[in-house]
């Protein structure tokens, strides 16, 4: 028996992601999935961003990692509720883990939930977690051609954050060239070039989050 189908391979994941999205929408929560390579500065970006949102948005962070609770501890030190999601070697977060975890958050008391994905430019790009905004995080230390090498993430992203701008004098990263590669894939996403370490140029990114 031959069956012609046209079925999304990620149907199982995407159904759970839709449940997460519906639940968050019900509570008026916006969630942001941060995807970037290991060491791109995702946690440092959150450390710089969360204090700027304080008093304006009630935030929480789901910290995806392969191992250790280091990142959740860094966020908790800011007084922001943080939950560590460990994949035990898994290279990305899936919708099921996020769906189960998000229900443990005090949803009625939150406006903005960040989901920091496992450091990886490839696998997480395939998995919808039920977020409202997907953000690609790329550091100047990684190279300006990364959007060309990992197109799926940059095509899917609703915004791109270029981090570690303070390293520009020390690395061969051409910001214009990087933006050109991003625009091949994605004409609409705003691109925020900033330094989370020095706090330079964070304002546009924070404004975007406030209006998300």
């Amino acid at each position, binding site marked *: 028996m031959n069956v012609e189908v046209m079925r999304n391979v990620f149907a199982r994941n995407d159904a759970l992601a839709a449940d997460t999205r519906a639940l968050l929408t019900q509570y008026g929560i916006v969630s942001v999935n941060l995807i970037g390579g290991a060491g791109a500065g995702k946690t440092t970006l959150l450390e710089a961003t969360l204090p700027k949102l304080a008093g304006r948005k009630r935030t929480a962070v789901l910290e995806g990692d392969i191992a250790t609770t280091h990142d959740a501890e860094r966020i908790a030190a800011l007084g922001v509720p943080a939950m560590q999601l460990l994949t035990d070697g898994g290279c990305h977060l899936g919708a099921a883990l996020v769906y189960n975890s998000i229900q443990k958050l005090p949803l009625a008391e939150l406006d903005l939930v960040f989901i920091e994905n496992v450091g990886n430019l490839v696998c997480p790009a395939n998995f919808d977690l039920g977020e409202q905004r997907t953000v690609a995080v790329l550091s100047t230390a990684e190279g300006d051609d990364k959007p060309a090498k990992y197109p799926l993430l940059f*095509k899917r992203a609703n915004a791109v954050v270029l981090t570690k701008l303070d390293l520009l004098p020390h690395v061969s990263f051409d910001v214009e060239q990087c933006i050109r590669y991003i625009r091949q894939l994605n004409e609409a996403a705003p691109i925020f070039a900033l330094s989370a370490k020095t706090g330079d140029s964070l304002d546009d990114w924070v404004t975007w989050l406030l209006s998300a």
Partner: protein
Amino acid sequence: MHEFSIATELVAAVVGEAERHGARRVERLECQCGAMRQIVPAMLIDAFELAAVDTLAEGAQLTVKTVPPTVRCRDCGAETQPTDWAVECPRCTSLNIAVEGGDELLLTSVTLEVDDER
């Protein structure tokens, strides 16, 4: 090696189809992968074989078809479908291109073994 994660989802999708039709097992399946998914067909086939063990899809034969994206050049206007993921217009080598499609990942055909085939 994101092929294994994708293989696991593919097994779930095809087993879902098999159960929906009350099949005894899956014989063959075909999927379309956009080039932007950066899937190595041979690796996906190997990963699928492992992921399918102890399911209705164990031993099923997987065929992977890679679908190229459409590259539209904003400078010379050429529209091409390069089989490999490219960052420049194959005609005029401009980097000022727009890449459309090539991100699909679909299960397109399943051959099932059912008990009472009429």
